[in-house]
């Protein structure tokens, strides 16, 4: 139940003003420039081109390639993060031995700067001097091209994402698991429901709302990936690991093609919005069923 009280304005206006001020300018600026041909280098006067930038982008195979790469990285890494994060959270919630130690140490990766993670990954994945190469040599696969061949490079980026962000999924799901009432499980145990049945019958449905939220956050954030890719592969080999943000960076800050970059970012926004809406639409019936 919500109530009405004039003090609500005092509560909400600070946040509202800050977000309005900081978000309206980028919006106005990039939406207006996305309909213009505007370059800083070489400087040419801005010219209105309507949907020209958008049309040009949609015909550019590089855009589709980059969008596809980003989608693969985002979906596979978030799926892995969710499965691993949920399993670990379940174990921690069930008082696995040494749970206190695990609980703390598992959070660490989330707190490490992505730039630093990427630098460490470069060292570990180095094809001649890295420790992973030594391990693979023992198995008979020396000098694998971890960062210089498309499939390996995408796999490496996904592993780094999983390493870094599984803790976030775990933290959120663990917080959710701890709010679940004990008595439901006691009742289930009396009915002789095994752990598998308890998980699919009780835990998973009750965790669905928070799962949806966590996966949504991670999906959106994964689409914006840049620093890891930037430091690890620089988008290479060629453009095979380039992501949407990195593409925008290349267009905007190497070629200073502002109109094109703004149009790209709006297409990016549309892609994310569509994915988000489809995702929520698919899950809505399930969420309501378990309310």
């Amino acid at each position, binding site marked *: 139940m919500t109530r009405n009280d004039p003090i609500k304005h005092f509560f909400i206006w600070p946040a509202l003003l800050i977000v309005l001020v900081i978000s309206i300018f980028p919006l106005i600026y990039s939406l207006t420039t996305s309909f213009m041909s505007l370059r800083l280098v070489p400087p040419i006067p801005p010219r209105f081109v309507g949907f020209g930038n958008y049309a040009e982008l949609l015909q550019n195979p590089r855009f589709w390639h980059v969008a596809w790469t980003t989608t693969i990285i985002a979906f596979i890494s978030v799926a892995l993060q969710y499965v691993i994060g949920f399993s670990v959270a379940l174990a921690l919630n069930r008082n696995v031995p040494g749970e206190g130690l695990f609980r703390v140490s598992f959070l660490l990766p989330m707190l490490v*700067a992505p730039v630093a993670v990427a630098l460490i990954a470069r060292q570990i994945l180095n094809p001649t001097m890295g420790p992973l190469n030594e391990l693979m040599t023992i198995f008979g696969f020396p000098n694998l091209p971890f960062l210089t061949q498309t499939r390996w490079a995408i796999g490496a980026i996904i592993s780094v994402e999983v390493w870094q962000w599984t803790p976030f999924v775990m933290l959120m799901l663990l917080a959710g698991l701890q709010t679940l009432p004990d008595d439901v499980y006691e009742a289930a145990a009396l009915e002789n429901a095994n752990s598998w049945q308890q998980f699919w019958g009780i835990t998973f449905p009750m965790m669905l709302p928070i799962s949806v939220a966590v996966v949504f956050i991670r999906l959106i954030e994964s689409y914006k990936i840049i620093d890891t890719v930037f430091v690890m592969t620089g988008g290479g080999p060629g453009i095979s690991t380039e992501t949407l943000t990195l593409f925008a960076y290349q267009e905007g800050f190497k070629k200073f093609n502002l109109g094109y970059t703004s149009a790209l970012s709006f297409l990016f926004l549309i892609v994310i919005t569509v994915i988000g809406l489809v995702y929520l639409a698919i899950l809505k019936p399930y969420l309501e069923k378990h309310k």
Partner: protein
Amino acid sequence: MSVRDLKGNGRWWALAGCLLWLAFTFFPLYWVAITSFKSPLGVVGGPTYLPFVDFEPTLTAWSELLSGQRGQFYNTFMASTIVGLSASVIATAVGSMAAYALVRFTFEVKLLTGVIFVVVAFGGYLLGRHVAGFGQATSLIYAFVAALALAIGSSRIRLPGPILGNDDIVFWFVSQRMFPPIVAAFALFLMYTEMGKLGFKLVDTYTGLTFAYVAFSLPIVIWLMRDFFAALPIEVEEAAMVDNVPSWRIFFGIVVPMSKPGLIATFMITLAFVWNEFLFALFLTNSRWQTLPILVAGQNSQRGDEWWSISAAALVAIIPMVIMAGILSRLMRSGLLLGAIK
């Protein structure tokens, strides 16, 4: 033995899984820690794992780093700390107030009011910029003030059209987070530069960077805190309302203490986000308020394969967050983060 405990073999399988994940989590951190103590020869000669056993640790990388040969580390560290702490405190405070309001109070905004705001803001900006010939910043400020005034004024009168409720406002806040940060960062840089021409220096200042970080942390704070507040039992607040306790005292005296676990977790997530943020710091700072991620990333391009010094620099960015995790774990163990919700 409670229902929550695992029985029999499941317990050991779970332990094995956790240990495996622990190894995966810790190896990279261990690796960067030992690499920072290696000599150049120890790096190039192939992977070595145990200090004193298969390589002789040296302090070269660290002494070079701390003596300032690798850039202004002390200054950068302080900038990162100050900006990180203040931005996450402000974002958590402002954001949880808004989140509480959105959970407990009724908000009704007419869709038309929002449309008026956007149209006037856009139109005013375009008019000011291309017709009246104002500068970018001036026309933007005029357009913003006019749009806000008109929107508030229009909400007083009866307007037709759909009404947006609390959920829509939350969605609007959270959707700010979807906006690709690269364009927001560059557009903010341009706005800050324009403001600088008017006499408000914002590029490479404490205010400019903190303000940007607060704004970009707010959506996540509001999303997280809304869930925590919604899970709180409303009966306590209703009891207080029966006793005529004013709303602000209910919030600061009852709700905030009850939601400490949520507030601390949110603060931690915000701090980690701000501390590690790369893109905004890259565009909005250049020397005085440069943050650690920029410095660390710079090591890569400047120093190529000098892993020992890169590792030391990376560790400077990593260690404070590790210490924070330690403090947090103490809070967790003292029950602050666990029992409070129940």
